[in-house]
């Protein structure tokens, strides 16, 4: 089964390498949203440093959401999803492999770029490690939860809107605790509780969503 998952990971990474625009699109979106925010509100450091945590987390969520619709859709359209489902392995392993690639491509770059973004928004430097850690735990949760929605709308025309509606409520707790942890760190408060909750959500999502999305794909 590990080999099966590695096959999918290798194939999907190869596909990304052939079409680098797919990686860049959510990333460019992420940077643009954040770059435009100070223009919209005010470039004042005091105000920005207060809102930075929320802005970064919302932008990360939207960037994830943007790339989710295609998670299974392309495979469905060209028939390769059928072949993946016919392989003699449980469908959750397929979901897990696909979500892992999705996170590598859409989540990991955001985390790596977040210190730069934090500086742009005057986030206090003591909060940057918390920001990175919360994104490290939070973005895989976003990808995992999104997989359920993506699996459900696979094969539905114009499923993007439906996907957003389905997934957004599930994203709310992740955003609340993710943004709160960064805000707390910026004020020099303890973040252990927030991190524990984020980690709990990640573990829960890791256990439930591959199975749920796998079942949804078979519908």
């Amino acid at each position, binding site marked *: 089964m590990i080999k099966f998952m590695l096959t999918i990971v290798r194939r999907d990474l190869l596909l990304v390498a052939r079409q680098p625009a797919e990686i860049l699109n959510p990333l460019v979106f992420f940077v643009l949203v954040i770059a435009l925010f100070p223009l919209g509100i005010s470039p004042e450091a005091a105000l920005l440093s207060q809102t930075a945590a929320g802005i970064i987390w919302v932008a990360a969520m939207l960037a994830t959401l943007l790339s989710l619709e295609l998670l299974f859709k392309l495979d469905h359209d060209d028939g390769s999803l059928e*072949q993946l489902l016919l392989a003699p392995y449980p469908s959750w392993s397929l979901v897990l492999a696909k979500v892992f690639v999705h996170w590598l491509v859409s989540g990991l770059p955001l985390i790596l770029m977040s210190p730069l973004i934090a500086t742009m928004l005057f986030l206090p430097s003591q909060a940057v490690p918390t920001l990175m850690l919360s994104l490290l735990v939070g973005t895989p949760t976003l990808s995992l939860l999104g997989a359920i929605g993506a699996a459900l709308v696979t094969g539905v025309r114009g499923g993007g809107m439906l996907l957003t509606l389905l997934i957004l409520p599930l994203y709310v707790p992740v955003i609340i605790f993710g943004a709160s942890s960064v805000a707390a760190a910026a004020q020099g408060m303890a973040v252990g509780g927030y991190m524990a909750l984020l980690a709990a959500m990640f573990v829960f999502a890791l256990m439930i969503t591959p199975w749920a999305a796998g079942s949804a794909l078979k519908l």
Partner: protein
Amino acid sequence: MSFTPSTPPHLLCTSDLACERDLRILYSGLNFSVKAGELWHIKGLNGAGKTTLLRQLAGLHAVDTGKVLVPNKATRVIYIGHKLGLKEQLTADENLTWLAGLDGVSTQEQRYAALEQVGLRGYEENTVAQLSAGQKRRVALARLHLCKADLWLLDEPFTSIDQQGIVDEQGWLNQHTDSGGAVLMTSHQTINLSQVKILDLSKYAPISPINRGSEARALT
């Protein structure tokens, strides 16, 4: 039909299989069993449910009424549908790599040999997007040579294949059944092979007057 101890094993059976789509019954009461060495040609008009039947047999379409049985759990099935399951951005060789990787491993030598057998020598490193419709189908069919499967479920495998290709392909089908495999396929072409069993879905359609008692006929 005489049953001797050396009766070839059943690879797949259906019992009372039916299919309903959009409140319309496409076929019902489908009873047949596929033994090793048999080639079944599923016939029917457009919309008769040929593709759906193959998908039901492959396990890709829900079975609400009746059953699809695969007696031996180790039976390996390859399904090639209308959608070929190829990634346009990848080369023919890369596509075969991941398709074969779903159920085992393959060496580059084996993949090149399989591509050569379907007449795609020299196209191994071309992306599938650059190939013609017929060549794409040949890439998908190359998998039949690469992965050893007992049962082939082929949906219109002759589509966009040229005349000579169809002749070659029938040769592969023959070879596969001779070596103990079985094939279930749909096609609007006549298959010029000696041992073709025909499953005519129109006999199982509810409106058809010859529906009743057609089980025996299909099993001949």
